[in-house]
């Protein structure tokens, strides 16, 4: 059995440590999306999920963490940049929709958004 936390201060960290951080941010984002009632809270959960994916991309593409296990160049970092741009676009549109919803219904509670016709 391998204990990942036993020699954490003396061994170099690997991809798996970064992936645990990414997994925790992903899970926090999913819980945020599932439980928050504020529409902007759900948006923040989406940002957390995308950021967890970014951590994984950068870790997989990093030569410091992979060692000589495989050279994939800068693919991971480029895809992480694309994710950042797409997250910015998604946040802009979702925020516009949330503000429209707030202007129409005078609430930001997503449980009240059960009426399909505006």
């Amino acid at each position, binding site marked *: 059995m391998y204990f990942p936390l036993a020699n954490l201060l003396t061994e170099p960290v690997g*991809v798996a440590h970064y992936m645990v951080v990414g997994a925790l941010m992903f899970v*926090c984002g*999913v819980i945020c999306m599932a439980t928050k009632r504020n529409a902007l809270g759900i*948006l923040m959960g989406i940002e957390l999920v995308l950021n967890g994916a970014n951590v994984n991309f950068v870790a997989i593409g990093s030569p410091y963490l992979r060692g000589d296990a495989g050279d994939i160049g800068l693919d991971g970092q480029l895809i*992480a*940049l694309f994710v950042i741009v797409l997250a910015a676009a998604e946040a*802009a549109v979702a925020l516009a*929709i949330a503000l429209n919803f*707030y202007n129409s219904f005078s609430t930001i509670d997503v449980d009240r958004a059960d009426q399909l016709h505006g």
Partner: protein
Amino acid sequence: MRGRRETDSMQAINWASVFFLLLAGLACAFAIAVVVTGNIVRMAFYLVLSLAATSGLFFLAGADFVGAMQLLIYVGGTLVLLIFGVMLTSQAPFINMRTGSGELLIALALGGTIFGVLAFAAFSIPEWRNGELAAVGPSLPSQTAGPIGMGLLGARVDAESIDDDKAGYLLVFEIISVHLLVVLVGAAYLARAKRRRDALPA
């Protein structure tokens, strides 16, 4: 004896691991704080700190340009947009909106299960456990901004092992550029100021 063991461990401390622990602890703690708190303003603040700590993790992994873009675009742009949204909609009944504890319990159980599975899967691959910095030290590019720019223009200069037929991200770069333009125009159209309708009765 205990003191000698401590000095031995002091000599062997890997400072990259120490900084990783610090930044990862900050990122994870503030990500959990985003979930736990019910106040939307505090959620935004914790999210800013979590994403800033994540940019520190990117710097630590050698991705300096992505870390800088994380700070500039994510923390400086996207989250400021979110905070504006919070300020525009922060009427008193919407700042604290609690979820039912039963739903929160189910979500925590499911999330803990998913996290356990993901962490176990990450550590079950032996090549991913330990990085080997010494093996790759001198051949690394010290700055990644130039190779990233060349990659976005369709010419890969970063890795010799990449074939020519799958090189370059020019098409993807053009697609996300036009996508971002269209999306921002659409968002400005959606969020334009218009005559306010009467609120529907609750």
